[in-house]
């Protein structure tokens, strides 16, 4: 037996593929569209969400028996907001450059529906360890999609990856550009992110027919 029992590892692996928060549950779409024009922003956003969702799920799970049900949504919001502010402040103090790249997006984690969704659907009914795994799994599932979308948008939109000119220089006309290739500026706009997410959903469901909802 490995590090995790079968049931526990399912908590991490499920959201990565067959129960992905973005492509299957269609949560957290807003940030997936907004920040994926660059790979770097996608990666840092994924890490921040990983932290907030992992810790947040544990906190909510520890408090689950004493939270009054009438105000549970507000309590969840406060936990997310507090964690996000702490992340923001710590980044500003110890990773100033990074915090500037992220700017408003850290704050926007508060509005990410995946987080509230996992608090409400999982952490309120499960122990801290399982909640932690669930949080990590879902955040990773979210992050994978973000990174895939960011990869294609930056590559096709700007011809760069993490800022490196991988396709040559568009102004000097070197590399691919010498053959007449042009960057597709449309890739940098949000609608294209939705189309990329759509393509991922399409590929995923055509590979696993069980995921197709029947109406």
């Amino acid at each position: 037996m490995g590090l995790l029992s079968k049931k526990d590892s399912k908590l991490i692996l499920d959201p990565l593929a067959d129960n992905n928060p973005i492509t299957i549950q269609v949560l957290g779409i807003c940030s997936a569209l907004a920040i994926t024009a660059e790979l770097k922003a996608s990666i840092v956003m994924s890490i921040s969400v990983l932290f907030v969702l992992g810790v947040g799920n544990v906190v909510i799970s520890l408090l689950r028996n004493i939270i009054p049900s009438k105000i549970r949504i507000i309590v969840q919001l406060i936990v997310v907001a507090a964690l996000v502010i702490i992340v923001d402040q710590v980044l500003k103090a110890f990773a100033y450059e990074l915090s500037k790249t992220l700017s408003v997006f850290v704050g926007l984690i508060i509005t990410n529906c995946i987080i509230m969704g996992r608090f409400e659907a999982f952490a309120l009914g499960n122990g801290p360890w399982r909640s932690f795994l669930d949080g990590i799994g879902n955040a990773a599932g979210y992050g994978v999609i973000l990174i895939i979308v960011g990869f294609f948008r930056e590559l096709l939109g700007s011809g760069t990856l993490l800022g490196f000119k991988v396709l040559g220089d568009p102004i000097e006309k070197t590399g691919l550009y010498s053959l007449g290739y042009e960057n597709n500026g449309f890739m940098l706009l949000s609608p294209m992110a939705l189309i990329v997410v759509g393509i991922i959903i399409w590929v995923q469901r055509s590979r696993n027919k069980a995921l197709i909802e029947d109406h």
Partner: protein
Amino acid sequence: MAMDTDKNSYTVLFAVGMVLVVGSLLAFAASSLKPTIDENKRLEKQQNILYAMGVNENDESSANFVSTADAPDLFKKYIKKQLVIQGGEVSEDDQAYLIDVKKEQANAKAGQERRLPLFVGEKDGKSYYIAPIRGKGLWDAIWAYVAMDENMVVQGAYFDHKGETPGLGANIKQRFFMDDFIGEHLKANGTFKGITVAKGNADPKNLDKTDNEVDAIAGATITGDGVSAMIRSDLKLYVSYFNNLKNN
């Protein structure tokens, strides 16, 4: 543990307790991290000013500051004078780089005389005059440090922003945009004209340095217009200083 968590009194108590705990936690975090954050901001200003006058660690394509550890020493070495211009009066102030341009702009709106910081740097026998400017982008504030020579010809610039769109407006802090400003004239025929970030520019490789135009970033029209506007409005305030400089 059996507890009636549905009672109103419990709910209120829980809410009060939660607010107290979270509030004090955040207050503690904020106040204990504040000195580090302020120090970061101070160093960043020095790095920005040095960057504009060409003291940086740029490699082939990306913009890199001098390290935070070296910034204070290099700042002392290269910046010879820090000036504050207020209503035609010029005075020296070695804390001028800490002047908050945003506050000064607000004060100017309220009718007060605006304090204009100007940093005089020297590198390889050449003088640089570096001015901070600030304006509006698409989502939030944008600002810059512009280094000029005696004739208001740009020698270097550092742009930054608070929340422009990554991949679009945020690219104003990329080398390909900032470097376009180097050598560009702010004056035309002796009068101040500014530099316009122009779409449909006939000179995309920016060979003509006297056309008062640099090439815009596709998809970042409003950020580009903001850059043009802040150059026009804020650098204009320094024109009389430069005119006096030449007359003396």
